[in-house]
């Protein structure tokens, strides 16, 4: 019988074996993880070796201005089971909504973990950070979110921002942004930040990103906006099963139409699939059951920056910010174009009046020449 070592000293392998699983179970788990992270099957061996030698990675999970929807999404992760992630691969030392401890005990656990694992732990942030009026609009244990974030980011090896709020600002930062909310990367500049946007993100994507870091100790490849490419490399549109209807020009014109029932493309009902990067099309939700478009509902672009202000959701063209409601680019364009055409017409009339002498002069010359034509 092996002696039990304290949780955060264990390797992944030891923690799994100590729980009574067989090595065969462990290998199955490793194979599953590799497939899940989108790795080649030849990488399984490397993954097994990593899990046998690497210590479990400590994770601190902060909650700021948010609805806790991302946590709700995370605990519904089926592949891998959230229990496996939390108990076997990471050491979730602080998350005030899920942990057993509360109040001073919880804060003390966080402080202890941050001290012991300084420079090594992952910081997960859920929710935006208000900056207005000294950040008083979100306080935890009497301290502002900015203060808490700066403290826990100082010793973090990397930061993962779960959800659109911590990645972009989310609903708090939507116009008029009364509390001056900002995303994490507006405050923390000196740490690698992995953005996992979505409202909420897909649970398997959240666990996949955490596992990638836990397994390899490296940041997954990110796109220009800081999102991991393995999950946010494609537009929802590019992996949409209704894409053939788009290319064929077959669109649902309204929600109650025959075309909507037939499953035609929802582009004209405001679908943001063509401008939204997310894994909905191929990972889907609720254990791969469905995703909005599959349920007949257009994508609202919840994983994109500033999506709340790019409404209305059910129209193709969004309103122009700052121009009041119902002021789309097309309406403004039509007015300006009409003004230009009207101005040209007025100018043409004015030309005939004000350039009368010049025009008359030209005509006199032309008529005089006409009368002197010789070879007629």
């Amino acid at each position, binding site marked *: 019988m092996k002696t039990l070592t304290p949780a955060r000293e264990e390797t992944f392998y030891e923690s799994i074996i100590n729980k009574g699983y067989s090595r065969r179970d462990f290998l199955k788990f490793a194979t599953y993880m590799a497939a899940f992270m989108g790795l080649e099957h030849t990488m399984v061996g490397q993954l097994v070796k990593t899990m046998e030698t690497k210590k479990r990675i400590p994770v601190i999970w902060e909650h700021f201005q948010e609805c806790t929807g991302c946590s709700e999404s995370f605990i519904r992760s089926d592949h891998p089971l959230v229990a496996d992630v939390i108990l076997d691969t990471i050491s979730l030392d602080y998350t005030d909504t899920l942990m057993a401890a509360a109040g001073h005990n919880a804060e003390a656990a966080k402080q202890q973990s941050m001290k012991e694992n300084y420079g090594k732990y992952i910081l997960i942030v859920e929710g935006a950070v208000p900056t207005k009026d000294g950040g008083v609009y979100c306080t935890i244990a009497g301290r502002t979110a900015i203060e808490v974030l700066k403290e826990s980011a100082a010793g973090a090896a990397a930061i993962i921002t779960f959800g659109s709020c911590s990645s972009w600002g989310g609903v708090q930062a939507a116009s008029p942004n009364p509390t001056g909310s900002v995303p994490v990367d507006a405050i923390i500049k000196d740490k690698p930040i992995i953005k996992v946007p979505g409202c909420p993100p897909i649970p398997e994507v959240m666990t996949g990103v955490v596992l990638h870091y836990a397994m390899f100790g490296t940041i997954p490849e990110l796109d*220009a906006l800081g999102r991991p490419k393995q999950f946010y490399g494609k537009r929802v549109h590019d992996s949409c099963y209704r894409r053939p*209807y788009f290319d064929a020009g*077959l669109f649902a014109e309204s929600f109650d139409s025959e075309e909507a029932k037939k499953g035609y493309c929802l582009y004209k009902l405001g679908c943001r699939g063509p401008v939204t990067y997310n894994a909905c099309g191929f990972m889907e939700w609720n254990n791969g059951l469905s995703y909005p478009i599959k349920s007949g509902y257009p994508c609202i672009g919840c994983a994109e920056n500033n999506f709340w202000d790019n409404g209305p959701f059910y129209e193709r*063209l969004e309103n122009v910010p700052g121009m009041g409601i119902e002021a789309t680019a097309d309406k403004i364009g039509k007015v300006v*174009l009409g003004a230009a055409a009207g101005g*040209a017409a007025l100018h043409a009339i004015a030309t005939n009046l004000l350039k009368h002498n010049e025009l008359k002069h030209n005509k006199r010359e032309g008529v005089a020449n006409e009368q002197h034509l010789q070879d007629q």
Partner: protein
Amino acid sequence: MAIAIPQFKRVYVWELAVRFFHWLTVFSMIALIITGFVIANPPAINSHAEAVQSYWFGYVRLIHFATAYILIANVLFRIYWAFAGNRFARWDVFLPLNRKAWANILHVLRVDILLMKDKKHRLSNISIGHNRLAAFAYFIMFLIFIVQAATGLALIADNSSWWFPKMFKWVVPLLGGDIAVRYVHHLFTWLFLIFITVHVYLVLYHDYVEARGEASSMISGYKFVRSERIDNNTE
């Protein structure tokens, strides 16, 4: 009734390359604007056909993308010609960098836009190539074109395997996301429409008032210039 009848001489203003650029721009812009609006708001041509039998929207997008590349190549060629072409096509025509250019802009604003009386009528005020206000407007259009091309290429970059559109990926983080990029691309289309309206009107205006072949010059390449302005000794 004896009146002094002015003499005009034919001057080669627009070289073939400039005229080719102009008309290729016209046709590709028309194609881009039409297909662009169709893509933004496709008409309802719903049939009961299966999707596999139809691809019209895909073709509209194909025309839009292919034409965009033609127009970009065309503009790159025009940039080259701004250094290789004649004095009316050169780059410095488009930038009001000296006092003379600003004087011409002021003259055009007073006489042609505000229709004020041309009190001291000077022949040198009549532009042979572009007037300097129009030329500056074309430079602004060139900048607007760059925004339109950069946003368009940024939108297609992820679906393309070519390095050229991928060069414009930085536009997406600059504007904050694909939604904003698409929005700018759509809004700027209207600037082209407004430019076309004003441009065509002013060409017709100049042709009407000056009566020296303004409109047809972009077909033939020649404009008619008063013979006093041409040195007769260099036959």
